[in-house]
């Protein structure tokens, strides 16, 4: 697995091209997220901020988000509301680039961006209880680059999708969060948890 990741990163570096996108940028936007937490399911929405440093087709981004979360297990147990905070880092690769217009340093582009990253997620449930764990994710996004939008700033808008994997919490921890104690019947253990997120955001940089 480690060799595969190193090989993928090597391929990205080896294929890096010159790029006129912002060398550094900050951004933010909206996200809708769903995740399995053992045999329970959580859905929610919120906002995120990110900061990116780019070199050629590769970029390194730090991302943090705050989202609502509603945890449900079965139809007999009422759902539990909470807050999800995440913080992580992602390696972003511009794998495709289409530029219908370019006038000097003014560039319009539609780019394909692939993400590979890791994050720490922490759920805080109403009435007490916290579930925290690390996870990994992959993502793909279409990025609309508007080039220089003012004398100092460049702008871009991104819409994308992420899929994540994480090691599951213990059945006891899931029961405490989802059922305020013990669930009946006892939830079955799972091998891993999965998550998805739709991301819509913008970024400004130099």
């Amino acid at each position, binding site marked *: 697995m480690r060799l595969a990741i190193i090989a993928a990163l090597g391929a990205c570096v080896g294929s890096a*091209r010159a790029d006129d996108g912002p060398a550094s940028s900050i951004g933010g936007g909206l996200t809708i997220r*769903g995740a*399995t937490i053992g*045999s*329970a*399911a959580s859905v929610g929405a919120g906002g995120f901020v990110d900061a990116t440093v780019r070199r050629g087709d590769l970029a390194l981004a730090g991302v943090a988000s705050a989202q609502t979360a509603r945890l*449900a*297990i*079965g*139809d007999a147990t009422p759902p539990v509301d909470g807050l999800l905070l995440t913080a992580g880092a992602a390696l972003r690769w511009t*794998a*495709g*680039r*289409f*530029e*219908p*217009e*370019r006038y000097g340093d003014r*560039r319009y*582009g*539609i780019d*394909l961006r*692939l993400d590979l990253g890791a994050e720490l997620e922490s759920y805080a449930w109403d009435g007490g209880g916290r579930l925290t764990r690390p996870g990994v994710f*992959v*993502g*793909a*996004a*279409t990025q609309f680059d508007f080039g220089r939008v003012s004398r100092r700033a460049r702008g871009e808008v991104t819409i994308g*999708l*992420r*899929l994540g994997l994480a090691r599951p919490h213990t059945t006891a921890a899931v029961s405490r969060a989802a059922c305020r104690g013990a669930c009946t019947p006892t*939830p*079955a253990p*799972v*091998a891993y948890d*999965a*998550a*998805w997120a*739709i991301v819509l955001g913008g970024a400004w940089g130099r």
Partner: protein
Amino acid sequence: MGTVSRAAVAALALLALGAATARADELGRRRGVGMAMQDEYIRIRPGQDGMVGLGIALHLGRYWRALQWRGELAGAVASPGGPAQHAQLLRAGGAVRWAALATAIRSIRTLGMTANLDLGAGYLWYGDAMGPIRRPYVGVGLFGAMIMQDPRAAGPDPALSFALGTRLTLVEGGWTMTGGLEIEWGR
């Protein structure tokens, strides 16, 4: 080995042969890389109700005339609400896509529209709280695509295409139906 498995192995062998010999399509594209955001209706475990999922797919393609050979990786998650039914799906395989009908409007930039039929095969992993299912698959799809081709484009990828369509994937004992929007960067 079941019927679907034999068909999947034969199709993958043909796809590999085609990809190795592919050259360029009529718009000059030799290869493309793309992504798709898609919905997935999953009905794989016998006796279990179907479920709707959300997925993402990536592909790498090579062209020869009106044909494209492509390698694909697709993932989806589904959660219909009941306990022990949260499901994850992963597909890895290949497909050949045929632009059966095509029209091009030539101006400063070329705008083309195609109707595509594709046939694919590969291996599918499905998992939920009841355990994993791992099987070969074969698939058939129908897509409509719009291609923007700009030989003067400043970037390294002078073509962009948008495809909208659906695909039926068959495995032994089940099936999935996928629909979504795909974007491809071609050069």
